[in-house]
Structures are given as C-alpha cells and as structure tokens.
C-alpha cells in the first residue's frame, strides 16, 4: 500500500514532492553524452553582430543625448554617433543573414511577430532601427555635403528619437535572446547578462566616440561615461558569476572561451580601461595615449565579451554534468519564484 501512496503523491501534490527524490544531482550521465544540443551559431559571426548591435544602438542613444544638451561643443559627437549608429544595419544585418543555414529565405523572419521569441523581437527592432538610422544619417550626410541646412538637421534629429528608442532595445535584446534558451550558462543569469550587455554597449559607444575627438572637454565627458558604464559592467559581471556558481554552471568557464571571458572581457575590456582612465584622470592629460588605449581596450573587450559568452554557453550545453546540475529542482524553485507573474 505504501507504494501506491507514493504514486498518489506524484499525481496530486504540487511539483516539489514528486521532484524531491531527484533533488540532488548525483553525477549520473548517459555514457557521458551531451543532454542538450549547443546552438549551431558561428560564434565569431554572431558575436560580432551582437557587439555591433550594442555599439550602434548605444551610439544612437548618445547622439540624441548630445543633441538635447544644445551645447555647440557636442555637435561633433552628435554627428559622429549618427554615423557610428549605422554599424548594425550596414555590417551587422548581413552577418545575421550570412549565419542562417538557408540565407536566401531570410525574409521569412518577416512572416510573424512573436513576443516569446527574442529572435523575432530583434528582427523587428533591427528593421525599424535600420530605417530610422539610415534616414537620420542620410539627412546628416546631406547637410554635411551641402552645408549646414536647418531643414535637413531637423529631419536628422526627428528620426534620431525613434532610432534611439529602438537602439536601446537593440543594445540589450541580444542578452534576452541568449537567456531565452535552454543553454545552461545563458539561462542561469538573465538579468545580470542583460545589464552586462547594456553597460558594455554604452561603454563601447562612448569609447568609440572618444577616438578622434579633439576637444579635451568633450573627451573628458565621454571618458566619464565610459568609466561609469564599465563600472556597471564590472558589478553586473560579478553578480553574474556568483549566480553561475550558485546554479552550478561555473565549470563551463574552465574552457578556452571561459578564459577569453576572464582575460579578454573582464581583464582587457573592463579592468584595464578603468585603470587607464583613472590614471589619465589623475595625470590630467585627457588627450594622451592613455585614453586612446583605454578606448581601444574597451571596444575590444566588448566584442570579446559577446563572442566568449557564446562559446561558454556552447560548452555548458555540451557537458551533461553541467546541464543536469543546472536542471535540478533547486534552480527551478528559484526560477519560479523570480518569474512569478510574468507571461
């Protein structure tokens, strides 16, 4: 009789009780074979797109912010970020199409719009963003060529507002795209990953605008923005790694991609530029090689963050010990608590 009671429990009790007997993962695997399939993305290609989407999306935001100050010294920043914002549509979109296994059917992405699929959300955001950024940059270019024209300037500024709104999504939806999968490392810390990507985008855009900026005052402002964004990225990165430890997926970082994330994204991309920017502020020489080096390191680190996180995710999906540890009920309870009330 006792055995039948066990079954009744399984049928009538909420999740917890039926799962209790499998609460701890005991290290079992099926002949050591993967339980999940890693994403079939080409990490260099998709990582570069994610980086460019972040860079140009954040540049679009900075362009509008520079315009709203009304300061004439920021005109150059406004204009240059408008061109920088073209990186996603001109370079990024072709990379995405190239990564499809049946590229000639890329237009099928436009058949549906789905809130459950960040890939679909991203498609529509990129479409809208591309339209507004090309319009805004074209008006800017025309005004540059034919001399400052008030009407062209207002077209550029008008289009820049929806462009910046779409740009903010473009800079961060890629984290949501990775989190909304069953790949353990991507799924483990959705919020921290998104903050990390958003901050990295802002840092890389501000750093890119620092390069070639001659006005020392403006350069100083852009450096301050870079430093602030890098600090946020550092905090989000630390929180993300704590979550990876707690949810048992940290082992995936013991891989070439994990080392690239540690040395490239965190070391080269965050700590080094923060140190260089601090040194440059202390020495008071904002135009010097220090700030240029900081900007280059920030941009390179931002790209490496995206490429390495794709690789670490693949590693976590390929290793059954990690994916099984991740899909234990303890992680579930937390996930269900976190997400109560969301669709």
């Amino acid at each position: 009789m006792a055995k039948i009671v066990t079954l009744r429990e399984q049928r009538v009790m909420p999740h917890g009780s039926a799962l209790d007997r499998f609460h701890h993962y005991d290290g079992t695997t099926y002949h050591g074979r993967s339980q999940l399939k890693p994403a079939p993305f080409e990490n260099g290609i998709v990582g570069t797109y994610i980086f460019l989407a972040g860079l140009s999306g954040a540049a679009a935001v900075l362009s509008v912010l520079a315009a709203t100050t009304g300061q004439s010294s920021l005109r150059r920043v406004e204009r240059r970020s408008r061109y920088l914002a073209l990186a996603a549509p001109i370079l990024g979109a072709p990379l995405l199409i190239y990564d499809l296994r049946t590229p000639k059917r890329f237009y099928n992405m436009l058949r549906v719009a789905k809130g459950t699929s960040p890939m679909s959300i991203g498609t529509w955001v990129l479409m809208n963003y591309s339209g507004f950024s090309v319009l805004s940059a074209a008006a800017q270019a025309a005004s540059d060529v034919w001399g400052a024209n008030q009407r062209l300037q207002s077209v550029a500024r008008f289009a820049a507002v929806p462009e910046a709104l779409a740009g903010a999504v473009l800079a961060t939806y890629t984290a949501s795209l990775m989190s909304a999968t069953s790949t353990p490392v991507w799924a483990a810390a959705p919020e921290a990953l998104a903050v990390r990507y958003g901050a990295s985008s802002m840092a890389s855009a501000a750093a890119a605008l620092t390069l070639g900026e001659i006005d020392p005052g403006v350069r100083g402002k852009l450096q301050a923005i870079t430093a602030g964004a890098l600090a946020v990225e550092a905090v989000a990165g630390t929180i993300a790694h704590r979550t990876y430890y707690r949810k048992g997926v940290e082992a995936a970082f013991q891989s070439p991609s994990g080392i690239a994330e540690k040395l490239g994204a965190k070391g080269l991309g965050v700590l080094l530029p923060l140190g260089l920017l601090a040194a440059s502020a202390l020495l008071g020489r904002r135009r010097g090689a220090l700030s240029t080096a900081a900007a280059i390191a920030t941009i390179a680190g931002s790209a490496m963050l995206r490429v390495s996180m794709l690789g670490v995710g693949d590693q976590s999906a390929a290793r059954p010990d990690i994916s099984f540890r991740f899909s234990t009920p303890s992680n579930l309870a937390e996930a269900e608590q976190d997400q109560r009330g969301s669709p």
Partner: protein
Amino acid sequence: MYVSPRAQEFAQSTLERVIPDESELTAGVRIEPGKSYGFFTDTTVCIGCKACEVACKEWNNLPADNLGLTGHSYDNTGALSANSWRHVAFVETSGNGGVRATREAPFQSGWLMLSDVCKHCHNAPCLEACPTGALFKTEFDTVVVQQDICNGCGYCVPACPFGVVDIGSNDGKAHKCTLCYDRLKGGLEPACAKSCPTDSIQFGEVAELQRHAAERVIHLHDLGVSNAYLYGVPNSPGATGGLGHLNAFFLLTARPEVYNLPVAPTRPSRRVAPSLLSGLMAVAGLAVAAAAILSRRE
C-alpha cells in the same frame, strides 16, 4: 487482447486501399482533429529491438547517420538528430568495469532501454523561439516544422530543453519528429508505435494515455517494481518550469539522468521579459547619467 470488431471487415490478405481510420484497428483510437495525441513510452517492456527507429526512417525517408560503433552499449544511434527521430537508449546496470555479468536477476533487471523521441511539449520552447513561424502546433496538438518556411536560423536548437531539434547538414533546415503528421491526417497510427512489438510505445489521446499510464505504475508497484514513476505528466519530473505536460511521456525506473533526460527543465520564454526589462533599465540608467555628464558646463 482487444481486437476491434471492424477488423473482420478487412480479413482479405491484399487490401485495395488504405483502411479508413486504420488506427482504430491498430491502436484502438480514432484520430480526429482538435484532440490531443501523443505517445506513452513504457520503458519496462522495451526490449531494445530498434524497430521504432527503423520504421521511423522508412516512413519518413530519413537518411542513415552514424554508420559505426559508439562503444556505448548497443546504442549506435547516439542521440536524436535531424535524421534520427527515434533513438533507443541502452543502459547496462549489471556487470562491473565493462565486463558483462554472467547471471541476471529476473525481469531484464540488467538492462534499461528507452525509445527517446520529441516530447511534443504542451508549451513547446522550439515553437515559441521560432522567428519564422515554421514551427507550429497542429490540429492534433503536436509540434511540427514546415520545411518550406524554415530558414535555418537554428534558434530552436538551443531552445529545446531536451536536445531534440537539430539542423540538417544537407539541407540547412530544422528537423525533428512530426508525430507522423501525414499519417495522422490519413487516420494511421504513427509508424514507430505501430511497429513496436511489445507495445512499449503506445499511441493515443494524451488524457487517456495518462490515465492508463497511472494505472500501469500502480500495477508495477503492486508487482514490486517500487521505483516505477512517470516522467512528463503534470506534477512530475520533465513537466516543470512552465512547460506544462509533455504529449510524449515516459514510464521510468531509474533517475531521469540515467536515460539522458533532465529532472527539471524550464520554459525559456519565461526569461524574455525579465531579461529585456533589466537590460533596458540598465541602458536607461546609464543614459540618465550620460545626459547629466554631457550637459555639464565647462
């Protein structure tokens, strides 16, 4: 054994056409649009013959893959893939250090075998991830990829919590079990279930299968198989994290991981909103800070 009374109408050795509603004769169920169909795979009666794998390849015209030996017991298929939509897992529980035992306790106790398949989740993550609408829910409550729509973006592959969906290397499209959509349309039971000689794979209406499976577990418990439990029915391992129930569910006698199944998979789309919102809040916060920095007067 139950034999449908309609069977007598088709006693001749050659038939001129497909038997209407043939599934009534072979699976005891009439296939009607609007109802929910699936598989109940009872691993306690699986003998590892792989007839399901062969029947699936035959019916669906799937090419061979992995022509070789894996060294993983009798499992030379390895995993579900673009070309293998049924996969029999073999686990040897007796013997020691790679040496097979020469004596076995009764009831096939030295072997665990499971015919794995797409779970046709109630809230299917692959379908929710698909940006083209190539993946859809059929009138039989099953999940199918439309090959003429799929553009091979590959997002359904990491979305699947069971590692089922795969991109074909020869055509660049996503492939997986269709629960024999074409056969269901014609009133035929899916090929794997029809070919299963021990009825380890049972096809039918999901609610009916679940009821039957629960009885089977009670029966096994009474026989002394106290570790039998269901995987993928409501409130059980496999049907967790918002996935709802699995239309293809299993009766297991060991931990899910033994058969390469996760204990507590989750529905990925639940992470879309928290992630998007946190990212946007970070950018908004940094934009406010940037606005303050930029508007500073020197």
